């Protein structure tokens, strides 16, 4: 299955530099419709708002460690919302601990990626999620 270039993506990270890097990688990969949020707490209303407007996000790329609402809590909110049970969610983290992977998998993460990663690795993860 080919992924549409204009798939609606939300990048969530509390570090501006990281958001810029990830957005650039996604753009390099060919994606054109990328929004961003600086925390799970700011991402969640954006996700809900997009649903109300009838243009829901189709892919979430989120950091794990954020101060107000972690990526894990954002994922749990998403999964407990009717209609979002299958929303593709890629978790990005600097931490790679086995327990965390299991927790994220149990919470319904689509895939997991460890910092630092290249645009190629990101593309591979995305292909894996959507194919």
């Amino acid at each position: 299955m080919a992924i549409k270039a204009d798939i609606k993506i939300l990048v969530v990270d509390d570090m501006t530099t990281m958001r810029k890097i990830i957005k650039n990688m996604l753009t390099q990969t060919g994606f054109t419709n990328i929004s961003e949020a600086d925390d799970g707490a700011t991402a969640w209303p954006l996700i809900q708002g997009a649903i109300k407007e009838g243009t829901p996000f189709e892919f979430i790329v989120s950091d794990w460690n954020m101060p107000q609402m972690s990526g894990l809590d954002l994922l749990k909110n998403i999964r407990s919302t009717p209609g979002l049970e299958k929303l593709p969610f890629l978790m990005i983290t600097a931490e790679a601990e086995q327990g965390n992977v299991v927790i994220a998998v149990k919470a319904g993460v689509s895939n997991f990626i460890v910092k630092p990663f290249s645009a190629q690795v990101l593309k591979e993860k995305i292909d894996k999620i959507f194919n």
Partner: protein
Amino acid sequence: MNFNDNPFMQEIVDEFCSETSGLLDTLEISLNLIEEDTSNLKELEKFGQVIDRIMGAAKYIGATEMATFCELGKAIGYKSSQINEKALIEIVVAVLFDAIELLRKMNSFLKAGDDKSMSKLNNKAFLTRLNWLCEKFKDIERSSCTITDDVTLNQKSIDELMKSLGL
């Protein structure tokens, strides 16, 4: 690091340096609060969370030494937030203040593209101190913002684990 041939990367490094400078101020405020009240362990946890942000981006831009400092600072911050030993916390705070000062210098050299001054910093000796301190907390379980502290995995291991979980 010089990115004259890569304007995007130069822009990223400039942004990183500016953002890091603000985050280092935040870290210093946290350390001041802990110094005033060594029982303020929440602030140590916050320290670990903020330094984690710098770490992730530092790894990306290839600021390896900064990333290593942050990694150790993060582990020390989180681990020491789980103890209530005034004398040890005082040492932790003192070492972390020094770490922040060195990170500030590294950040300003990075911003200026001054590799020569960067290489003159006595980072190795200080890294030994940070490692020594981190070692003091080896029996403390949680070293990160996350819930458990199991085996640290690389991307390949994670992929294997995900695969074994049917993903």
